[in-house]
């Protein structure tokens, strides 16, 4: 990552696209009613497209129910997409069989939100971090142990921690173990699903610094999923804002935060309370709650809460359009 001296925007060193997502959809079926005959769908992810360049961090932001975690899980093939294509390092997920899926999986790592439930409580740190190595390689026990030690040192832990169990560690330390595990197979791409949301602020800072540092050293590409705008601004090169299964705005980080265009992005930024007592504003609120992803509003999904909504917003769905270089918005009023 280098800082462009003129615009002070973070840009990735390479131009190679590592991750490409095209028209991704993931619907969950709900059965109900008499004899389970009634079928509804949760339109969790509804036609999402984006790409991530090698070495870049794309922040994916949204509130609960917007579908961001589902995007992460579908990208990793923990969930099978309903439609659309995911391409990791030129390999298409939809065309993969068990063998090629295994190859793709080695290029990726996943860090989960909850440091307390994402580590097996009955396994030692050595076993937890060694598991991907045992599953996907033919390394012998001694080589595995050395590799695990190397990984632990990368995340700021050491030999003393090898034989301990998860309950003996704090939340921040557990997240470090999760990161070590995610890096075991030398992946080029990590999906980080709210990696610091469950951590205290001082510990969060340690883990965020670690992630940024590892990205520089190991030339990693990140999809950083979070609801915390300040955290996302700090770690991301580009940011995508999601609402009810769709991306409503996507741009370079600085442009998005300094010049948000979509009414939802503006409301989201205005809603974040500022820790500086001198910078308190009477912001405009967004009234109401997020509609259910089962009954999505017709046309633009945001119209039920949008201060600018007109009649035609219910009839047509706005598509993402580029309004300036690298900055796309899905809104009829931009």
């Amino acid at each position: 990552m280098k800082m462009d001296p003129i615009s002070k925007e973070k840009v990735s060193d390479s131009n190679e696209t590592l991750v490409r997502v095209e028209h991704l959809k993931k619907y969950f079926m709900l059965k109900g009613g008499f004899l389970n005959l009634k079928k509804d769908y949760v339109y969790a992810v509804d036609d999402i497209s984006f790409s991530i360049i090698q070495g870049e961090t794309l922040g994916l932001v949204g509130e609960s129910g917007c579908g961001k975690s589902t995007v992460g899980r579908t990208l990793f093939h923990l969930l099978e997409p309903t439609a659309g294509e995911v391409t990791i390092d030129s390999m298409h997920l939809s065309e993969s069989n068990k063998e090629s899926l295994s190859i793709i999986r080695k290029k990726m790592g996943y860090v989960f939100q909850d440091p307390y439930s994402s580590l097996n409580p009955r396994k030692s740190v050595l076993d937890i971090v060694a598991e991907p190595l045992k599953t996907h390689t033919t390394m012998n026990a001694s080589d595995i142990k050395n590799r695990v030690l190397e990984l632990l040192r990368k995340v700021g832990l050491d030999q003393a921690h090898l034989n301990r169990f998860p309950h003996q560690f704090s939340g921040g330390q557990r997240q470090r173990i999760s990161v070590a595990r995610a890096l075991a197979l030398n992946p080029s791409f990590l999906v980080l699903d709210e990696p610091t949301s469950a951590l205290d602020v001082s510990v969060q800072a340690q883990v965020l610094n670690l992630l940024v540092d590892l990205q520089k050293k190991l030339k990693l590409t990140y999809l950083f999923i979070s609801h915390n705008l300040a955290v996302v601004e700090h770690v991301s090169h580009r940011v995508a804002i999601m609402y009810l299964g769709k991306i409503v705005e996507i741009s370079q980080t600085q442009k998005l935060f300094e010049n948000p265009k979509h009414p939802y992005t503006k409301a989201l930024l205005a809603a974040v309370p500022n820790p500086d007592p001198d910078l308190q504003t009477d912001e405009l609120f967004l009234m109401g709650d997020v509609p259910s992803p089962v009954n999505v509003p017709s046309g633009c999904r945001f119209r039920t809460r949008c201060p600018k909504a007109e009649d035609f917003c219910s009839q047509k769905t706005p598509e993402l359009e580029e309004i300036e270089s690298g900055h796309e918005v899905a809104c009829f009023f931009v």
Partner: protein
Amino acid sequence: MNNNTLLKITNLNIRFHTYKAIVSAIQGVNLNMREGETLGLVGESGCGKTVTASAILQLIPTPPGEIVSGEILFEGEDILRKNDQEMRSIRGKTISMIFQDPMTSLNPVFTIGEQITSVIKTHQKLNKSKALKKATEMLFLVGLSNPKETLKKYAHELSGGMCQRVMIAMALSCKPKLLIADEPTTALDVTVQAQILQLMNDLKKEMGTAILLITHDLGVIAKMCDGVAVMYAGRIVENGTLKQVFKNPLHPYTQGLLASTPKIGDDKEELITIEGNVPDLTQLPPGCFFSSRCNQFKDICGQESPGYLEAEPGHIVSCHNLQLQ
């Protein structure tokens, strides 16, 4: 807000007896609140803020909890000396509390109407229909657009934001003097949080209620509070007005907390961190509890516990560094 003292906690010490060891949850906590004031109690997990708040309503189970010493004066009377019956007439009436997760704080098997009217009927001598009318008014006051419909619903039928509005309606239905809000918006989305915080501020102005706001979110404190108390490992390390503590933080922990919070518009490459971890509350070190993580450590910090110094009027800090100046 006037100058009358509403709440005065003096030298509160609470510990918990577990099968393994004794946990010193809070030590020597002093806290004052004036009528109509919003005081923020901020700290990270395990610092003792919920224990402090729960003690005010005698919600600490004893055993395993033990109130070792201290007094909690509310309007001049020591709450810790009151019996069950007296406490029942205080809870929900003079002092109310709302909790972090609104979806699980409401009773799932009773309708919203039944729950709110239960509070109203307990503390005010109103019959069912009058209580329902009052409940409807409260729901309208907290911004629920179909109060009559909401009264008939169950908690699982409402969103997180709506549940928290119901909780606030219940808590304020008897116009308490003090509202204790324990992480009231932590479980809510940021746009819903903004609505709820605004609601709390509006109602507070209307009713003159004092609010003890417990949170780890510094942005929420900056938006809502007149005063702030910072807690670490069971002790209050800094206390003062919002501006004093946030613009001129004197304790190294407060400085570290403010510096390690990412803020929108900040152009920093690396976040400043506080190295290390919170100490084990069953094995607290001698001297200052923060010493192992402090970048301003002096020898005396490992030997003696720092007392309290008033660095400027109303701004109290517990740190040897200030005393050495």
